[in-house]
């Protein structure tokens, strides 16, 4: 059975694609769909219930909740995917280097990586954001730094296992350069665990970004993000339940879909683990 068939036969995968794909499309084309300016305040139409004009009602400044939710996907996905990509690139490069070349350099890399793990993740993020200010690029870098160690450790341990494998030795005997061996021979063979980790990191990134935004330490207002909207909606939880309901629902669905994507990737790419789950 080829990979595509395996994926399309996996219910978790199908579900998460059905949630994530429209989400990404909406994030990309959001500005074309929305009917109101998500930043425009309207003091005369504050905290309205859903209507034909404002499909999900308005917030405490009279801004359209639906429009803000559509635009609010962007920072979350950008930060989560971007941060995970940074972490994957940095982590796998460091891990491959440490694993293949080893020696003193490898030791230095792995010890340096351990330092990041000394901090509780959310606190390190809060420290960085507290010192260098909130903002999307800072959030992206924080997620990149926080999850680099995870990728690095995976790349390191799998490279160590494969370093002396026959197909790698063959390349070396044939006279391939170190760069070529690492990039073309080793990397494709350690890719599956890294992809699985990537999807886990995206889920964690979404949780972290929305959590920080909820605390008011993430995406700076007036620009919207789901976590931030939930944080604002808490003041109106008694009178305007819909304000909190829709961003919360979307956030939960998105995280659920990313988690299931991780499970599905693990099922297909790493069948050895399947029995224990």
């Amino acid at each position, binding site marked *: 059975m080829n990979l595509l068939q395996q994926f399309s036969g996996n219910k978790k995968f199908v579900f998460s694609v059905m949630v994530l794909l429209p989400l990404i499309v909406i994030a990309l084309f959001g500005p074309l769909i929305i009917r109101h300016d998500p930043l425009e305040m309207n003091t005369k139409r504050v905290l309205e219930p859903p209507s034909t004009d404002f499909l999900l009602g308005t917030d405490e400044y009279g801004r359209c909740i639906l429009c803000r939710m559509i635009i609010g996907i962007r920072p979350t996905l950008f930060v989560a995917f971007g941060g995970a990509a940074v972490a994957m690139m940095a982590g796998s490069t460091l891990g491959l280097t440490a694993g293949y070349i080893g020696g003193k350099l490898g030791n230095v890399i792995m010890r340096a990586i351990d330092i990041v793990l*000394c901090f509780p993740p959310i606190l390190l993020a809060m420290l960085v954001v507290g010192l260098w200010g909130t903002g999307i690029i800072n959030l992206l870098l924080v997620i990149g730094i926080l999850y680099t160690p995870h990728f690095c450790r995976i790349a390191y341990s799998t490279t160590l296992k494969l370093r002396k494998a026959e197909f790698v030795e063959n390349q070396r005997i044939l006279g391939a350069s170190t760069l070529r061996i690492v990039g073309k021979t080793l990397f494709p063979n350690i890719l599956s665990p890294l992809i699985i980790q990537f999807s886990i990191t995206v889920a964690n990134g979404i949780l972290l970004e929305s*959590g920080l935004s909820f605390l008011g*330490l993430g995406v700076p207002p007036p620009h919207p993000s789901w976590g931030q909207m939930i944080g604002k909606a808490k003041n109106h939880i008694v009178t305007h339940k819909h304000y909190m309901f829709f961003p919360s629902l979307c956030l939960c669905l998105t995280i659920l879909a990313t988690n299931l994507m991780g499970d599905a990737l693990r099922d297909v790419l790493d069948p050895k683990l399947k029995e224990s789950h």
Partner: protein
Amino acid sequence: MARFFAKRTLTAIIQVLIVTTIVFFALKMMPGDPVLLMLSRDGSSVDPAAYEALAKQLGLDKPILRQYRNWLTGLFTGDLGMSYTERRPVMDAIGDRLPRTLELAGASLLIAVVIGIPLGIAAAVKRGSWVDLLLTGISSLGQSVPVYVFGYILVLIFALNMRLLPSSGYVPIHRNPVEHFRRLILPACTIAFGFSASMLRMTRSSMLEALSSEFVRPLYARGLSKARVHMKHMVRNMLIPVVTIIGLQLGALIAGTVLCEAVFNWPGIATLLVKAISNRDYPLIQGCMLILSIIFIVTNMVVDLLYGLLDPRAR
């Protein structure tokens, strides 16, 4: 064994030193002058003599390495400097709030263990049945609902609709123990939900492993009942996943506590830190970061040591 203990403790000490160094220099690299910030929070002009005096009092006129040394010695004597906004020593502010955070985290851990492990065992024993499906389904949902969203769901149900419990706040235990615990229930259950979900999954998978392992069959052959085998011979093996999950999820527990304190206005160290960050109160940020990171490192160490005690292979 002694060697393992010594090695792990030494690692933790080095980690604490690294963390303190990073926190200190990260704050020194900050733009903005703390003395100016203390004297005039609105940016008005400052009397140079007053500036000199305060800089001298805070020790900020000394070279940076000297400041670092002073700060480190201050750490051991419990002096973390003065908070700009609280107008009192950082250590006092933390000392007030840390016990509350630890109480909240401890209570939720307890609830998570009490709920997660029995349900995990049940799911493993009844593998494939509707009980198993329901429990694993709920637990994968539990890992997808952010702490604060679940917190508000609980507030809506138990505080606003049923009016059983207060929706937020804190009452000191010496003033009114009943109210104190009534206000602890919702936040603790909120954190415990996600935590017990991962506890359930971990217990289930390690119980499944234990059920199919080789030491189990001879027990049946000796005529022991099913319940007796499950309870007596596997529980010791159950402790290992509990310790593992605490180690793995410690970061998540801290994150959960941080967010949950914000939802329920629980006046713990996390709300203090969030306030300090929004006010740019650097000594307070430094102090909170430091104390929480040290707790994180020490707990991780204890988890590893316990793990070594329970499972000799991990040493």
